[in-house]
């Protein structure tokens, strides 16, 4: 057993864990943050995507021990109270989700994309989400959802600048 501590969604967490514990299980089982899903074991599906120090990682192939002393962010942290992040709003407006299982991973990937490229074109979006599988949407509306988020956060930024 070993002790790990990491900030998750801005809050300090600490636990005694087996060294082999996967980050996805630390989040889901140890902390009860079940928004992050598990889908494949092999880094292919991306349902488990979370941020580690600001970068999206597949938490099913990351050990919790590797996150010791680091910063983790999950889907539960995207909304600011009742106010949804633009990517969350975009997924709703453009029907970018159906069963909802891939959604948390998609959202974390999308948020990371827009943070580094606030105005991505369709090809850039498709490239960015190509490590996240979705079986329901055929990706069309996910691409549109991310474009929606890009446009609306830009408009929001312009409005805020004008005030």
């Amino acid at each position, binding site marked *: 057993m070993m002790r790990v501590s990491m900030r998750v969604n801005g809050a300090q967490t600490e636990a005694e864990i*087996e060294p*082999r*514990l996967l980050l996805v299980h630390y989040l*889901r089982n140890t902390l*009860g*943050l*079940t*928004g*992050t*899903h*598990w*889908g*494949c*074991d*092999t880094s*292919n*599906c991306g*349902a488990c995507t979370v941020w580690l120090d600001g970068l999206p990682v597949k938490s099913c192939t990351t050990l919790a021990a590797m996150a010791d002393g680091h910063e983790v962010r*999950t*889907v*539960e942290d*995207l*909304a600011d109270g009742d106010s*949804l992040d633009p990517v*969350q709003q975009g*997924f*709703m*407006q453009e*029907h970018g*989700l*159906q*069963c*909802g*299982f*891939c*959604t*948390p991973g998609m*959202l974390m990937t999308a948020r990371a994309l827009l943070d580094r490229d606030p105005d991505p074109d*369709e090809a850039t*979006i*498709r*490239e960015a*989400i*190509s*490590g*996240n*599988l*979705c*079986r*329901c*949407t*055929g*990706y*069309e*509306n*996910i*691409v549109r959802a991310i474009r929606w988020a890009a446009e609306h956060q830009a408009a929001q930024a312009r409005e805020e600048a004008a005030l």
Partner: protein
Amino acid sequence: MTATEVPAPDDTRTPGGNPLGFGRMLRKEDARFLRGQGRYVDDVVLPGMLHGAVLRSPYAHARLVSIDTSAAEAHPRVKAVITGQTLESLNLAWMPTLSGDVTAVLATDKVRFQGQEVAFVIAEDEYSARDALELIDVEYDPLPAVVDAKHALDPDAPVIRDDLEGRTDNHIYDWEAGDAQACEEAFAKADVVVSEDIIYPRVHPAPMETCGSVAHMDKVTGKLTVWTTTQAPHAHRTVYALVAGLPEHKIQIISPDIGGGFGNKVGIYPGYVLSIVGSIVTGAPVKWMEDRSENLMSTSFARDYHMHGDIAATKEGKILALRVNVLADHGAFNGVAQPTKFPAGFFHIFTGSYDYPAAHCKVTAVYTNKALGGVAYACSFRITEAVYLVERMVDCLAFELKMDPAELRMKNLLRPEQFPYTSPTGWEYDSGDYPRALSEAMRIAGYDDLRREQAERRAAAESDPSVPLMGIGLSFFTEGVGAGPRKHMDILGLGMADGCELRLHPTGKAQLRLSVQTQGQGHETTFAQIVSHVLGIPPEDVEVLHGDTDNTPFGLGTYGSRSTPVSGAAAAVAAQRVKDKARLIAATSLECSVDDLEWEHGRWFVKGDPTKGQTMAEIAMAAHSSLELPEGVEGHLDASVVYNPPNLTYPFGAYICVVDVDRQTGVVKVRRFIAVDDCGPRINPMIVEGQIHGGLADGVGMALMEVIAFDKEGNNLGGSFMDYLLPTSLECPSWELGMTVTPSPHHPIGTKGVGESATVGSPAAVVNAVLDALQIRAADMPFTPAMTWRALQGRPMRPDLAIE
């Protein structure tokens, strides 16, 4: 409400900003999913919950010599180990399949496919449970495996099912439909006959969420509660009662949020049963979730049809007859999930969308040393295979006649005046305008321009091998969805009719209870819109309840695109009954005759005096008040319905796919995909389009990437997402959708199902496009670069077996 009424566009918006009735409406369920607050089976945590893990067979076919569980039982965190022997003592080692066969819960005599369940460990945590699997010592005596279905009936083939008394071969059934004699005659006088072997390889639905369950047997109350990944919670409850002898009123099946089903979550898997047995044995709740390899290797596969088609036509391209012989690989147990009287599902709808008098099919099903299943993956009970067959055969005919495949299809499509149309194999298509749909798809595609571009490219490619080969593929499909009627269709004797209950509370807010279960289709939104459409109350005032057998009426569940055709009709009829009853109550309140009342959205009012009327909310309050109601009218405002569909609904569509094939690498790129779907009126166009998008991705996946193949020992070669390839955002183009609207004449609101249409219709379009690019008549999917390259060399491979 007339049967064929297309709802008039209504711009009325509700206080919540939603359409009143049909129209684009954002989904109610999104609020929780977007925040990571969905509640899936694996999110269920109960006090004292234990974790189960399944030991699986490494062999495709082997005799079980011995199992030693003592080391596993000695593991400090292990609570119990269950083997086939344990289950035999409870008479639970075998369970019935949905097709009149039995399947092993845990193997007792032999293992019959790689990944078959051999033992179940229950421990305090999942990691320990899986550790303990390693401590179980199983001695196997390997046997030769039957891997190639084409050799399953060889005289010297090993007999897989020697557990069945008197069984001396691997034959399951022969089944026929259509008129063989009429076919013979049509073929005899045909100018052209084209024959082809076509494999629809084994694929897997692979929803993002794997299968699992949490079972809790409360020993004090005797109540069994099971949170489980099921598309059919009520059917599962009944099956558990029948199989395990548990009292049905003490079983509650909860199907919470489901991370995609696509047919994978119809069947009952050993893991579900083992979690229940585990809870009974340990007295604690037991969770079992399969991992991805387990999902791909052991739960329901789809397809695996080896087809030989013959098509007969005149030299002008008028189709005269189609016949097909199918060798169906059912795996080691016949666990196909389809209506009892239809052993090959609805495959005999293979005559498709065309007008010709003679057709015949013969299906021979065999056992092999592979996982069981067969009907899964959005197939509409094998209409996927049927559409693939006819659409490939029509293209083969076009190839031989050197005729444009669009022209050949247009020449043979059923005409609108032929509906309702009885097909040569006995299906009654309810409504359709097929030429209109094909014309619309060709218009959106710019078909003639595409053909011109293709001719130019081909000319350029002659001198330059780096110019990609361009292919244009078509498919036209007719689906049949919404099973029953109950007199023709049942599963394990349970007639395919579904219940629905609608209740308006005193303040006029409604609850709708459904037997069907969403796996992402958006029922909580769509069904609220159906009630809104009929009653004129805002959809945000209608709460849809589903997925809990204690709180919903009985019904067969969601698969075969049956939710809207069956339960959607039930909801509409229930709402109509509430509306009719509301009229009686309003007449009493307003002290007028019932005939004096007129309806406008959400309100009964007195003819000629619109100010004198009552809204549904006012009527609901009156229905619960001290108002004296007329004789025969009970208080409250509710209705319950069991809807027995008179026929299937028959959605249809025309698809066109454009691909570019790199001759030097065999890489296929889908450049465009045009899909014109007709599913009748669209309740929520946004959701319908989303359903179609998903199915089109399935088509690209199956045509280009997805296959579960086996090596000669029967090792599954598709056991992870590194081996079983699913389409990503990069393989999918931006879909181009079109629509026509032909209502179903027998559905109360004219709607047809749509959930599986695109999965059914699209694979043939992609394959036809690839073959059009390669300018060869036939080769089997999936067109991975290697398969495409081999086809280009004139040496196409079988996709279902490992490369020798």
